[in-house]
């Protein structure tokens, strides 16, 4: 489900956004765009196959508790 809907979005983005960027030869924007889209796609694929994606919530929680030294309530 994630993958299919992501693919739909990626296709739409390529048609609407990426092709004009390519035509205008904005290479920096083009590469950043492609880079983001690739991560987006990778995330979608991983989620489709139920791979657990690390969340920053937990590490941040432990860092914060380490620095401020409080116990979890």
């Amino acid at each position, binding site marked *: *489900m*994630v993958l299919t*809907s*992501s693919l739909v*979005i990626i296709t739409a*983005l390529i048609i*609407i*956004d990426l092709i004009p*960027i390519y035509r205008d030869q*904005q290479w*920096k*924007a083009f590469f*950043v*765009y492609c880079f*983001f*889209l690739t*991560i*987006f796609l990778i*995330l*979608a694929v991983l*989620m489709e196959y139920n791979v*657990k*994606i*690390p*969340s*920053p*919530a937990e590490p*941040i*929680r432990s860092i*914060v508790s380490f*620095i*401020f030294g409080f116990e*979890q*309530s």
Partner: protein
Amino acid sequence: MYKEIISQKQAIVLMITFIIGSNTILVMGGKSKQDIWIAVIFAIAAACVLVAVYARIAKLFPEKHLFEILDILFGKVFGRIIVLFFAWYLFHIGAAIVKNISEFIRIISLDSTPVCIISLMTGIVIAYAVRSGLEVMGRLISIIFPIWITGTLVLTILSIGQYDINRLKPVLYEGLEPVISDAFRLFALPFAETVVFLCFAGSFQRKSSPYKIYYYSLLVGGFYLAIVVARTVMMIGADNLSMFMYPLYVTARLIRVGNFLEKIELISAVLIISCTFTKATVYLFSFTKGVAYLFNIRDYHRIAAPSVFLASIYSIPLYESAIEMIKWAQDIFPYYSIPFQIILPVAVWITAEIKLRKNKNTTAENPQNQAM
């Protein structure tokens, strides 16, 4: 690319909506129970001090946004590193707010719809808004805001018969301690978040005053929040407030006027979502601007869509559940934001003051910096 400008009124309205934003979802309950409104007022008072720093930074560097300021003050390399961290913060919180919205929708009604659909749909809406740019956002919010105000007023008036002022008693029963701990959280959650606005403070209309923008919206948004929590407590009681996941939504469920007008919580849900949507848009807009700045892309609109979609898909694994999300926002977020909300702006401010004073001594005249 021409320069985007939003008028002072639009900036104020945008910031008010931003402040109220996700706090309509992530209320706030906590230890102070019926004294929560006092906690809000304490938080406003504390934020007044910090906001002065933000406004001062915006005033010192007119027509510059935070990333440029960082570059000027800390140099190309170090400045960019800070921008990188800040962009991460914006991305993370932006994704978290998308998660707030999608969890909210999922829990209150679309329980069997895959959460990714809701997140990505939210992503589409936000991406379109971000891609259209700041001016459009300013205009959009000036349409949504009056509707939103009217809706809230109608809900408040309709529910006025169900208020019981006795539910606010006893005042300060547990003493000041829980109130202050709640105030700290509230300080970090909506009020100090206005640091994000520095990312496009350069687009404020030239003649507008950042002080006015910051203080107007802080006071209006803040007191609105105080009234909302007080209203919620008056309607369902402090114990219910801390028990329900979405108290504000619950109060709208209870409104009944006569025997014909009831079950109008959907209006409340719509208002809550449109408000939170604005906040997510502001965050992801700033993130897009940061990324564009990092990679020297002059036209940030170009990369708006993938940045927003990245955030919206990343919001799905961000938290396991709504409970975790709310707990995280209450317990961890205030500490997590300290570097970005307090340390960074204060550092920027102090460095800026020192550098500008030096400049003044050497060059003696610089009309831009003498603005204040």
